[in-house]
């Protein structure tokens, strides 16, 4: 029952929100995300040891039923979504936004879509939620975005939509291959896919993977991302970068690995090479960005590249590392964006060459920035390190003959990451205070939001066991 509620609560409150205006919408959104988070926590308490399922008939003629699964991976991702959405709602409590009813309604609908994607145990349900998550985000960007929002969001929409359609084609083909009547349920799709001859798996892989590669995004499918991040309002950027990119990674793990093993084996090295090129390429480009949002966009590409590289050179440690890193990346990048939006509000610019002196004018904010920055470059005893270490170990231990080369080149990203992140910290926080700066440090809501983020950063950095235990079971099912 929890599984359905996780989708229903944001869905219903989201629809309800369109008819409310003013602060009511904010309060409703806050309550809704809080309720969802509580449920995610409940789910995560048991999901590590035992998966829960939900199943009602939906469109029997098509062979699809409304089927959900709450295992370690999906509950971990729901938990992350719950935390991130709550933080977004908290820090935006005293920000004014036009038409709050629609804004928060769309945010909640996007959350419902995300939850559905992570919980789906039926290919068609997966596809429907995949699109349901995309559409509200499209409207959010195009209504509340920056100056160049129309071309940016148009590109984003077309790009990801093309990917989705290819995925749908692939999934439909798979369902026709299921024994007996067509079925979209995960077990039959996985069985059908895995029993296909390798040659078919190879081209099916292309169809389905493109959708995920665009979403993550993997080099060279990434160019929609910096523009979209730059043009979106920051709460939406958080949904995009903390949550929606995980849809791609999650899709790979649930809907590609068990389904098309021969396709994965065939394309594995190619994807790893692309991912590693992406790490170095995106890190280098991040070094020369002056716009802080674009810098974070490229850093996110580098981070996702590492996860994807570890996914396609599979090892127990690497896959487990992806679980940890998906969660932690979501938390850390949310913290980053929260601070970036404060900077944008107070300084009135995103150009780092025009910033400076935050450590003097807003010391609390600077401390938070510093902690989150070091978490994002994987300093030990922050959550970023655990995942990164496991990913590197996984890359190194994989069966590929180039495993050492892969690991070493990917790890060069660690050095470049330190370069661009510390450059950013230096430009934003250090130096003399610029004139005409609003010297306002964190307000209560911002303080609470960032405190949640930092508490998770430190706790999971020192004691990652709860997260590891939650996802250990899933890893075993994926690796065989």
């Amino acid at each position, binding site marked *: 029952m929890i599984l359905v509620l996780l989708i229903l609560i944001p869905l219903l409150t989201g629809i309800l929100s369109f008819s409310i205006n003013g602060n009511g919408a904010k309060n409703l959104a806050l309550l809704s995300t809080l309720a969802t988070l509580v449920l995610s926590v409940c789910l995560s308490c048991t999901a590590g040891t035992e998966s829960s399922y939900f199943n009602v008939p939906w469109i029997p003629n098509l062979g699809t039923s409304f089927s959900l699964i709450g295992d370690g991976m999906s509950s971990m991702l729901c938990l992350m979504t719950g935390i991130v959405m709550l933080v977004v709602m908290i820090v935006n409590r005293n920000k004014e936004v036009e038409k709050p009813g629609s804004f928060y309604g769309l945010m909640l609908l996007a959350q419902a879509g995300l939850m559905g994607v992570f919980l789906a145990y039926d290919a068609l349900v997966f596809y429907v939620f995949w699109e349901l998550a995309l559409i509200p985000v499209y409207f959010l960007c195009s209504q509340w975005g920056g100056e160049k929002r129309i071309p940016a969001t148009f*590109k984003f929409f*077309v*790009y990801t939509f093309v990917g989705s359609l290819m995925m749908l084609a692939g999934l439909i083909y798979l369902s026709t291959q299921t024994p007996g009547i067509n079925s979209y349920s995960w077990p039959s799709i996985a069985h059908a896919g895995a029993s296909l001859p390798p040659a078919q798996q190879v081209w099916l892989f292309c169809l389905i993977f493109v959708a995920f590669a665009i979403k993550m995004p993997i080099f*060279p499918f990434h*160019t*929609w991302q910096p523009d979209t991040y730059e043009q979106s309002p920051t709460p939406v950027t958080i949904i995009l970068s903390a949550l929606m990119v995980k849809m791609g990674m999650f899709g790979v793990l649930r809907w590609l690995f068990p389904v098309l093993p021969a396709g994965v084996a065939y394309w594995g090295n190619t994807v790893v090479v692309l991912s590693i090129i992406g790490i170095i*390429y995106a890190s*280098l*480009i991040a*070094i*020369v*960005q002056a716009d802080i949002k674009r810098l974070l966009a490229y850093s996110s590409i580098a981070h996702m590249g590492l996860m994807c590289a570890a996914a396609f050179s599979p090892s*127990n*440690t690497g896959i*487990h*590392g992806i679980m940890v890193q998906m969660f932690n990346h979501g938390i850390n990048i949310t913290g980053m964006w929260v601070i970036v939006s404060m900077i944008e509000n107070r300084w009135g610019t995103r150009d780092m060459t025009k910033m400076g*002196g935050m*450590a*003097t004018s807003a010391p609390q904010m600077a401390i938070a920035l510093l902690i989150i920055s*070091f978490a994002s470059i994987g*300093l*030990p*005893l922050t959550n970023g*390190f*655990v995942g990164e*270490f*496991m990913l*590197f*170990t996984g890359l*190194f*231990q994989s069966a590929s003959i180039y495993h*050492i080369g892969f*690991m*070493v080149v990917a*790890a*060069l990203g*660690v*050095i470049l990451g*330190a*370069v661009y992140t*510390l*450059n950013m910290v*230096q430009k934003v*926080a*250090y*130096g*003399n205070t610029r004139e005409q700066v609003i010297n306002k440090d964190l307000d209560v809501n911002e303080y609470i939001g960032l405190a949640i983020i930092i508490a998770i950063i430190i706790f999971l950095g020192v*004691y*990652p*066991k709860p997260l*590891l235990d939650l996802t*250990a079971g899933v*890893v075993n099912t994926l690796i065989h």
Partner: protein
Amino acid sequence: MTQLVYLIPLFPLIGFLINGLGWRTIPKTAAGIIGSLAILASFVVSVGIFFEVNSPSFHGPVLVHLFDFIQTGKLYIPFTFQVDALSTLFLLIITGVGFLIHVYSTSYMHHDEGMVKYFAFLNLFVFSMLLLVLGANYLVMFIGWEGVGLCSYLLIGFWFKNRDYTNAAKKAFVMNRIGDLGFLVGMMMILFNYGTLSYGEFFGKLGTVPGALGENTYNWIAVCLFIGAIGKSAQIPLYTWLPDAMAGPTPVSALIHAATMVTAGIYMIARSSVLYNLAPFTLHIVAIIGLATAIFAATVAIKQYDIKKVLAYSTVSQLGFMFLALGVGAYTTAVFHVMTHAFFKALLFLGSGSVIHAMGGEQDIRLMGGLGKKMRITQITFLIGCLAISGIPGFSGFFSKDEILAATYAHDPILYYMALAAAMMTAFYMFRLYFLTFTGKFRGTHDQEHHLHESPSAMTIPLIVLAILSVVGGYVGLPAVISEHHALASYLSPVVSNAGEHHMAAGTEWLLMGLSSGLSVVMIIYAFTANKVPSFVPNTGLAKLLENKWYVDEIYDAVIVRPLAALSGLLDKFVEKSGIDGIVNGVGKGVRYGSDRIRMLQTGQVGFYIFVMVLGIVALFAITFFGVKL
């Protein structure tokens, strides 16, 4: 007592949390007291543990398991501490010297508005350093390893309004990260080949399990770990961050960039002595890099005018000596020099802090002179430090440095002569510094001369204690010709196994000792005659080259930094914007162009539509009935 070892890092952690969370409310004096007491408490526990470890009843390392850190499949890395002779010795050095520097800082930093923050960072540093030496596996060492890098970053850039300082902080962190990559790869290799990162299990398997690459496995792992040590301990080619690190407050230079953090690389290799003994090729590299660094840094120190820069290059050079000792397999000797160096280098840095304090921030030794008259305690303690580092008999540096030279001679006489040359340069530049600073006539402004004064007792007492240690610290390791019993070597022997003991004739040993001390005295006299009055004439030729540190920073800038930035710019402008995104947009435009053509089909004439519809239906029938299967 050893079970209480977790208290040692806990106290500084608590100190950090108190000062770190209360940075706006805690008064400065209280912050200093909290910070210092935390380290004192750790020191007391360390002393207790030392007596237990040093007693005959102590057998083998004690492992204290705290919690499971990473556990997945076959990979299991616990958060465990290891108490043995080596870690305990480092505990004493870190908390002992650390405490003195904290006390000194309460006075030195008292006028700084960021004093509470300063003590928070300093406590955090000690915490990280303690993790580094206490860890029972390489991952816990790595946690401390990167942690000290973080604190070093925070403290170098302590005065964050100055762009040069924050640049120096960034440079230190990034260069350390380059080394850390080596450490990381080394850990990966150990995990891959031996499935564990725990010292005990790893060393146990080393001789019996050859690893994937056979004998070469040892060398590969050893080289990778050594790259980590190069970064942290500032050896060629990753040393350039350390002189820049002098941007931080002077007590920080004493603690982090001289006495403790930079010796982490020595600790790591001494800790891994079992591995390095199996990797003789790597030991050669260690020796050569150490020796090259010792000589190179000494040449630069000769022509520096900033009092802290001289000491910085001297630190790099002394670290080179330690790596030389490791490279010739004399691990205990290297650890011995770590200890004596911690005493006299902390002393010298704190002394220089006292001088800078008195001079109102001036650091150019050409503008000092004659300070001894006004600052007697600083002068005498500084002199003791100089004598110790120059290896004058009776002072601690003599014993440890002489042991390094003797071990080097036994290994290879050619290396010995080169090391001797570096040692001679040490005596010269240290006494050049001493004479220019403390003797002769004062060369600063009248205003500065008026303000000259001895530092308060919170600063001079640590100087005195360190001066005493700089003298007596050497007597734990007497040369073989004087005493059969080498206290430190026998203390460390259960943990650290030297590669081959060299016994040389007593005559040879006396000769080597005489040679090095005699030459040192000659160099001191030469330094005295050559540096009565400094020259303000711009240097030319070799001297200019040395003054500008062989232009290494400029070379790195031209060869690595600029090309990388140019490449980034190129990728951003051309590959990303015009290339990949150009193609994507091109596809979009292509589709639009195609659509424009196809739009022509939409003629608006119903007849045409019906015609197309019929065609479509026919086609569908054809496919269905004539078995064109997908």
